């Protein structure tokens, strides 16, 4: 599976790390729904850390589409809410 972190790059994630990745993704979203900034920051930092630790970075000139796209590591809860989960850039 290929994951893109915005303002960072693309990473190829081995299968054994994927379950943990989805867990942390869900945790991040739960924190956004609860408007819990501290919980969001912690969960999202752990998610980025997991990708950096387990993923293999793709070169800039590789043209692989990503299976998942994640916000930049320094995203705020508010930005994550409006740009990545809410009615952000495009209507449904």
């Amino acid at each position, binding site marked *: 599976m290929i994951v893109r972190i*915005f*303002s960072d790059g693309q990473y190829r994630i081995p299968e054994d790390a994927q379950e943990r990745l989805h867990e942390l993704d869900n945790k991040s979203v739960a924190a956004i729904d609860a408007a819990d900034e501290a919980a969001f920051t912690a969960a999202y930092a752990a998610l980025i850390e997991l990708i950096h630790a387990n993923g293999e970075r793709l070169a*800039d000139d*590789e*043209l692989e589409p990503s*299976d*998942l*796209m*994640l916000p*930049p590591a320094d995203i705020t809860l508010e930005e994550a809410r409006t740009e990545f989960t809410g009615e952000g850039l495009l209507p449904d």
Partner: protein
Amino acid sequence: MPGLTGRMSTIVKAKVSKVLDRAEDPAETLDYSYTKQLELLQNVKKGIADVVTSKKRLQMQEAQMQQQVVKLDTQARQALAANREDLARTALERKQSVQTELQSLDSQIGELEDQQQKLVDSEAAMRAKLEAFRTKKEVIKAQYSAAEAQVRISEAATGVGEQMADVGLAMQRALDKTENMKARASAVGELEAAGTFEDLTQLGPGKDDIDRQLEAIGAGGAVDDELAKMKAELGSGAPAQQAIEAGPDAEPAASAPEEPAEGEQSESAQ
């Protein structure tokens, strides 16, 4: 796909397929999307230039405020030397608030620098991807039938489209930050115009009220000195000598009744 990642993926894929659906001929699609991405890259360059300009403006503002801190510090020392602790306190209070502003400005400049770096990195990755896309589209055009090409094109275009979405977000975040700063700068500008910060922002050759009061002290001293000299010339030696020695120390108590005449006197003294 639910979660944080789902929405962005959906948006990018929707945008890319919109582009791909536009043309019937794969070769045409490829050339169109390549040209389109090159155009977008020009916008990114302009975005980076905007961020750099905003940062320079903030840095100039920072330099001016640093000068103001030095000036207020000097004023406080002058006021203390003239036994005007009240005036020294006013100058130091202003120095404190300028320093607080400076700290906030400093962290804003830091944040803007971060955004700028991300934008530059993202643009470089975009260039690399676009170059790979340019090569790949020629290969696809030469080697594949229309049906086969469609799949490869979709993959390649999504790869590029994602990177463009990445650059787009980096640009949006950087520009949002500069917009916030512009709004803040204009709010400060309005306060200045209303006189609220008049003393804090008085820069360059302009004189603020502390300057004027310090000058008044200097003028007062000069008046005392001149008076003492005149008295000495008129021959009343001993009291004049006493007046010269006591002049600066005795000044605060003596200055109040003399004030109306000080301006004129000091001009003729220069």
